[in-house]
């Protein structure tokens, strides 16, 4: 609007940049590190701690680490009978390098290890497409992964048929055992857990009772005792002379244990489904299994994806306990190698444990990130 008042500006003032303290790095620093005196103190303490620990940790891990070598002398100081200068301390990656095949396969017959690699490759080939939502043929893919692959893997890993030499399960070890145990336990515990959860919410008292007792008993005791039971007591439960392979016994123990935890997660989902959904399904004339399979479970499972994945992560971590009943999973075989005289040094245990921790961490962290992704994707927005 035109005007002729001389003391009023006729054009807009150009927008000015925000004050220096309110923008860019300075603003971020001020708000995030030194907002209050307390914050400033905490920041200083944290930085001091990081400066103290981080460089020495990095030096130990990378700079001073011994990357190659053939025995303990490469990772021990002169006083300990090695070649390193006194006072040296660093990760002994040479140990991991020398043993990594054992960490992967245990004592699996060397000439037969291609079979494990093949199973691993098939697993990845089937599993990755299943994880990508856009990849086609989900049903066929799942069928191959959960029905065909286990059967094929069984013949490949155990052998004894089709001209493949048999490899006793006591020779199995390392990451391979960890993965086989977790895959089977996960694959068994989900359906079993769903059945137990449905049983617990059933109207039929005997079935309900059975489910409740099973779930609560298993959840009330440590996995170690379940594994001991599987390894020490199971043989007594069977008729004279019928014996189960130790690996199978551990598998049953872990799977039953996982199923009880899974059942409680699934039950949480079932309880969260509004009554209207059940009644709606009933009014459409669906049978119990149609109602459960088509209406209730798809909604319930979607709600509890984080819980299910957390249980998966728990199972994956729990497989490390089979070490206690004398099987050598990844952690067990690394632990066993601490005692190997060719490699026993002060640095070996820490190196091995950090390696094991890293491998476990990658798997578990991957699972939890994927679950967050799936949760977002499947969120139809009707939760708050």
């Amino acid at each position, binding site marked *: 609007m035109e005007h002729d008042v001389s003391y009023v500006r006729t054009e807009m003032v150009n927008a000015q940049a925000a004050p220096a303290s309110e923008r860019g790095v300075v603003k971020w620093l001020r708000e995030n590190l030194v907002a209050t005196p307390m*914050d400033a103190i905490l920041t200083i303490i*944290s930085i001091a701690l990081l400066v103290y620990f981080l460089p020495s940790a990095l030096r130990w891990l990378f700079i001073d680490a011994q990357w190659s070598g053939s025995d303990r002398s490469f990772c021990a100081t002169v006083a300990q009978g090695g070649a390193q200068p006194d006072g040296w301390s660093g990760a002994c990656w040479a140990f991991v390098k020398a043993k990594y095949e054992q960490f992967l396969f245990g004592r699996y017959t060397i000439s037969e290890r291609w079979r494990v690699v093949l199973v691993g490759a098939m697993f990845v080939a089937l599993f990755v497409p299943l994880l990508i939502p856009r990849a086609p043929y989900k049903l066929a893919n799942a069928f191959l992964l959960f029905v065909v692959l286990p059967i094929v893997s069984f013949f490949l890993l155990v052998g004894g048929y089709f001209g493949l030499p048999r490899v006793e399960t006591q020779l199995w070890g390392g990451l391979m055992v960890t993965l086989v145990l977790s895959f089977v336990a996960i694959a068994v515990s989900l359906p079993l857990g769903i059945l137990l959860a449905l049983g617990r919410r059933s109207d039929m*008292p005997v079935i309900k009772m059975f489910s409740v007792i099973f779930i609560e008993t298993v959840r009330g005791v440590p996995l170690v005792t379940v594994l*001991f039971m599987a390894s*020490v007591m199971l043989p007594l439960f069977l008729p004279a002379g019928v014996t189960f392979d130790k690996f199978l016994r551990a598998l049953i123990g872990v799977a039953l244990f996982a199923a009880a935890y899974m059942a409680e997660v699934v039950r949480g989902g079932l309880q969260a489904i509004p009554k209207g959904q059940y009644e709606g399904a009933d009014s459409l*004339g669906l049978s119990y299994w149609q109602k459960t399979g088509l209406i209730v479970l798809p909604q319930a499972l979607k709600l509890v994806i984080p819980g299910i994945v957390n249980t998966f992560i728990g199972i994956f971590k729990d497989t490390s306990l089979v070490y206690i009943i004398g099987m050598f999973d990844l*952690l067990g075989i690394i632990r066993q190698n601490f005692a190997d005289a060719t490699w026993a040094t002060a640095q070996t245990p820490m190196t091995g*444990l950090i390696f094991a921790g890293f491998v*476990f961490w990658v798997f578990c962290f991957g699972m939890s990130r994927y679950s967050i992704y799936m949760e977002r994707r499947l969120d139809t927005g009707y939760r708050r």
Partner: protein
Amino acid sequence: MASQDIVRHDAGSRSSFLNDPKIRGLIYQTVLFVLLVAFVYWIVGNTIENLRRANIASGFGFLNNRAGFDISQSMIEYSSDSRYSRALVVGLLNTLLVAVTGIVTASIMGFLIGVGRLANNWLIRKICMVYVEIFRNIPPLLVIFFWYFGVISVLPAPRDSVQLPLSSFLNNRGFFLPKAVWGEGAWLILVGLVVAIAMVWFVVHRARKRQEATGQQFPVLWTSAGLIVGLPLLAFALAGFPLTFEIPTKSTFNLVGGFQIKPEFLALYLALSFYTAAFIAEIVRAGILGVSKGQSEASFALGLRSRQALRLVIVPQAMRIVIPPLTSQYLNLTKNSSLAIAIGFPDLVAVGGTILNQTGQSIEIVAIWMVIYLGISLLTSLFMNWFNAKMALVER
């Protein structure tokens, strides 16, 4: 279920009693029941047959036999002449000891880290996040090994112990502290403490009455703290300072005297605390986030200070969200303490395992384990349910 209300048109002619959900349910249940009974019968039959064939004595009579082995750490008097039952009690007490100390430490750490993840300070937030993401994603057994093999076993031997302030020592045989030796008249301190607690209770009671009646407040916290610290101190002074310290000293093999914390216990305790703290931190974070923002805004509008708002409004509501998952974390910690067997800490499972080896009574030992752990779970759940009910929202 409502499905029996559905009437099908063709039901009249062909409907059999099999279509009645009640009867069908009955059939399912009978089948399951019969299968279960048959299964149990089969197992029990096999077991009895196996035991008879192997000539193994069964029953709990062996618990009265002499144990014959020593246990490295015991809270009650125990020697190799004690009975198996006493050895099991020693194991149980050790389990409880590590569980209780672990729970206390894990709760404190978890609370601090959980609050830290919501802090305004970016650095603190990130450090806490890294901590949580690391410890949540590795097996507890690995954390135990980390402390035991990675940290404690690389400490120096007793002769080159690391000397810490207050005459305490750290070496690969554990952590050695001066032991307090109470002299004559020390009972007065206990009396002082009891009197102080009684007085605090009285003060709290009166203060609340007065606030309700007049609205005036009384500095309860400072008074209580003063009473609880002051009275025992006064008693201590009156009794003539009856306290001396026994300082650990070096001998041929180990440090002797003083108060010793064994490395196995130390590793297990630290590992369980660090591991569980990550989970508790997430629970605490979820609990605080779960209290809606309107609550704190409303309390500021009422003129509460931020500490008051936290104590009187936010925390009580967050507690309700926190308690159920916290209970299961406490139980998990207790159950994870059975991993002690991997590093030779004599907990219930480790001691039971030794007895199992010596007597061959595997069924009895596993049964004892199960009953005790189930009992602990049940008692903890009952207590936490009671606590939860007490904390629950009283709706009017």
